[in-house]
């Protein structure tokens, strides 16, 4: 199956890749403003994106190449709980963010916040809490960027590149792709992924709709697909003596399914890249209008998940160039088996370009976070706008370089483990950010204590999960929930503990009257909209805090 290079597919892939590279460089001229020096320009696209650009940008940002590879892979390998939970997750996501993201937009617009840690700094006047939020954001984002590379690698491997020969030649295509991405992200900032997102999303919709209409009929129809999936999932795995996976969750998996969906939905918009895309929008309600139209991507993700089961019926053999079974290759392999070379090339381009958009936004978001909340806060408090922008641009390169080294030198299981941990970690910033959008009741040191406990509990619990077959740590995302006694998503359990500690800590700290920082926001800041006056920094100290 993998005998040699599929040249037709490769040619189409390269052509589409060159197209987005040109667009990426050209994007620096797109919607250009006069104030080039501000981090608002490079890092947030000038905060001018309307409903449709934001739709493409957020869609391109949240539904990453890794998602497109990993979700069907999970469906193929272990079934509905590990894979299909992505559907309820990305549906309930929207009512949840509808509630609080507009408030975050308003207060960030009013005070020119670029990151969530900026908000935490302003709301609680606590540089320590802001540091915790920013470090968590950066730590959670890094492996996510690395996994985008894993998405590109999966495509290149099925095309026939990499895997054999010398190390340098293996990784050369990935190196070139990422160097080009780094270059145009450096020059155009957030405008580059915003522009490329149009291509990415169009290709994804096209490829998945074609596949979902065409493939099931080729393998015997939907009824046969589900029957094949049921047979595989209910058969017994000789290594564990348990069923291979889950076809439809039984009662003991209800909590796992629901907590995975809820915890992931609450966590997603705590990631710096989601916040960057949200803050780049023009007005308070852009994100809410998007909450009504973004589910279109969730529908497509659901179809893609089902392709994992289509692959079961098709008898797809996802075998890597090293000869080992790798479920992550299942979708590229399915396309190569059933489609002519040129269309497989389009599909591969959809995945590869699908990796570039989130990788660019994530690196920009991590760079903004470093610049605003570590560089300006702790290293150079008097940084000018121009200095902030240049630091951010350089850090975006470093972040990508780090991700590349991470993927090329370590086993990719490390990236997957860290991304699993990243999801647990990022949810621990939820209390400081989202509770803070509604109330100043929580004490900043109480929130910090809750964060520390949640991070520790989540990390230790995830480490202690050992995969029964391989014996490796970080064997999954679900563990027994104390008190409730059901299997649930570790991140959500850690979050509950975090919130509890923050509340108890607040009461104690208030009793012993521990002082805390000044709140620079007012209740009106949380409702501000486009066109409202922005707070001048020099006025800050004269404002009354309510």
């Amino acid at each position, binding site marked *: 199956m993998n005998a040699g290079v599929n040249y037709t597919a490769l040619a189409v892939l390269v052509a589409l890749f060159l197209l987005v590279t040109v667009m990426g460089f050209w994007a620096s001229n797109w919607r250009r403003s006069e104030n080039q020096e501000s981090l608002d320009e490079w890092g947030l696209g000038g905060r001018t994106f309307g409903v449709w650009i934001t739709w493409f940008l957020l869609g391109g940002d949240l539904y990453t190449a890794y998602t497109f590879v990993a979700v069907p892979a999970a469906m193929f390998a272990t079934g*509905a709980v590990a894979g299909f939970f992505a559907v309820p997750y990305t549906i*309930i996501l929207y009512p949840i963010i509808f509630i609080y993201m507009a408030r975050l937009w308003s207060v960030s617009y009013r005070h020119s916040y670029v990151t969530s840690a900026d908000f935490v700094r302003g709301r609680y006047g606590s540089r320590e809490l802001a540091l915790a939020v920013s470090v968590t954001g950066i730590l959670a984002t890094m492996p996510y960027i690395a996994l985008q590379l894993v998405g590109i690698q999966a495509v290149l491997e099925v095309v026939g590149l990499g895997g054999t020969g010398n190390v340098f030649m293996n990784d050369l295509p990935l190196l070139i792709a990422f160097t080009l991405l780094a270059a145009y992200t450096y020059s155009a900032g957030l405008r580059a992924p915003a522009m490329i997102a149009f291509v990415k999303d169009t290709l994804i919709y096209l490829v998945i709709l074609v596949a979902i209409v065409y493939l099931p009929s080729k393998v015997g129809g939907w009824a046969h697909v589900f029957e094949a999936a049921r047979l595989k999932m209910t058969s017994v795995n000789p290594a564990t003596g348990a069923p291979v996976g889950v076809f439809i969750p039984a*009662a003991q998996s209800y909590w796992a399914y629901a907590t995975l969906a809820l915890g992931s939905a609450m966590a997603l918009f705590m990631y710096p890249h989601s916040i960057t895309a949200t803050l780049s929008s023009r007005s308070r309600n852009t994100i809410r209008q998007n909450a009504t139209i973004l589910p279109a991507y969730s529908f497509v993700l*659901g179809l893609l998940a089902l392709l994992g089961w289509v692959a079961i019926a098709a008898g797809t053999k996802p075998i890597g160039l090293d000869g080992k079974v790798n479920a992550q290759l299942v979708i590229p392999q399915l396309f190569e088996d059933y489609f002519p070379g040129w269309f497989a090339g389009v599909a591969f381009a959809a995945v590869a370009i699908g990796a570039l958009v989130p990788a660019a936004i994530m690196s920009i978001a991590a760079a903004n976070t470093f610049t605003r909340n570590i560089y300006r806060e702790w290293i150079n408090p008097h940084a000018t706008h121009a200095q902030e922008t240049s630091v951010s641009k350089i850090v975006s390169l470093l972040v990508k370089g780090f991700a590349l080294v991470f993927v090329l030198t370590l086993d990719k299981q490390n990236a997957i483990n860290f991304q699993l941990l990243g999801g647990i970690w990022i949810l621990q910033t939820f209390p400081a950010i989202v509770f803070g959008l509604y109330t100043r009741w929580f004490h900043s040191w109480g929130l910090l204590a809750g964060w520390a406990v949640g991070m520790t509990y989540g990390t230790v619990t995830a480490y202690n999960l050992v995969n029964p077959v391989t014996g490796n740590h970080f064997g999954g995302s679900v563990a027994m929930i104390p008190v409730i006694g059901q299997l649930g998503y570790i991140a959500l359990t850690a979050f509950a503990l975090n919130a509890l500690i923050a509340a108890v800590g607040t009461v104690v700290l208030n009793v012993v009257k521990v002082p805390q920082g000044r709140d620079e926001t007012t209740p009106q800041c949380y409702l501000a909209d486009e066109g409202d006056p922005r707070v001048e920094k020099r006025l800050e100290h004269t404002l009354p805090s309510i």
Partner: protein
Amino acid sequence: MSPYQSDTGADSPTNKPLMAVAAVLLMIPVVGLLWVGSYAAVEPVVAGFPFFIWYQFMWVFLCSACTAAALRLIRMARPRQTGGRR
């Protein structure tokens, strides 16, 4: 008194009942999908699709309808702040 008081739309107070209805609309999809026991079943199969699968796909549309309705209500409840300019 904050200097910002003037642009919060103090002249058009927030309509609380409408906001409450919007909140309920936003809760419906969350409850519907987190109540896994209500839909973890094969039957009824529609066009080959088990209930578990098509029911969750159906929520994509129901959820969009709920959030769109909630947005309309919020704009009615807070006419000045939400503007509806674009």
